[in-house]
């Protein structure tokens, strides 16, 4: 069965230090993978996506993620945290079918709440 696991429910970093939010997935075929950010009481905003092109994906606000098939991981990183990065982050997998197209399900991780300390 397809699934996505976010290994940390809470991450706390100091402003200016690196951010690492971990995500592992399980999928029969190479999936599409996404990271979304959600600020309090807001909708979800796409940070970046992997759809079988370059394995290192650059997104908005200085975030990037690397698709590692051997580790079934898609960890989100940022070199230097900013106070405005404090939010909840979701890793999302869209499995692909055996003909290569996306399936009809978007599967969310349980989210990682990022706190940024001054």
């Amino acid at each position, binding site marked *: 069965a397809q699934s996505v696991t976010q290994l940390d429910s809470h991450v706390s970093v100091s402003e200016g230090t690196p951010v690492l939010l971990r995500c592992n997935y399980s999928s029969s075929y190479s999936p599409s993978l996404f990271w979304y950010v959600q600020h309090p009481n*807001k*909708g979800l905003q796409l940070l970046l996506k992997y759809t079988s092109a370059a394995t290192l994906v650059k997104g908005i606000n200085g975030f990037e993620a690397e698709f590692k098939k051997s580790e079934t991981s898609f960890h989100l990183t940022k070199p230097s945290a900013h106070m405005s990065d404090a939010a909840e982050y979701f890793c999302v997998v869209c499995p692909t079918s055996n003909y290569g197209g996306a399936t009809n399900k978007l599967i969310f991780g349980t989210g990682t709440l990022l706190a940024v300390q001054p």
Partner: protein
Amino acid sequence: SQTIHQWPATLVQPVGSPLSLECTVEGTSNPNLYWYRQAAGRGLQLLFYSVGIGQISSEVPQNLSASRPQDRQFILSSKKLLLSDSGFYLCASHLGGLRNTEAFFGQGTRLTVV
């Protein structure tokens, strides 16, 4: 890109009352549409998804139902709300199959059942 309109933004309803949340999509055709619920301190739980008009798949048994009367309209309903229906509801649109793109989300509806 797609724009998802979701309303109302907030809603307070008494237990036992009906519910209707509406979601409409602009900027695309024949999308996959989704309803998610986000309970406090939890991730997003997929409630329903639809791949076309009149086609609804339910992910979890519950007090809710969904309908898709038009290609770009997705409605979440309940005949009698329960306290446990409180949460943050998100509508999403996604182009699946070979058109695969990221999902677009509405701004959400904060439902409080009292």
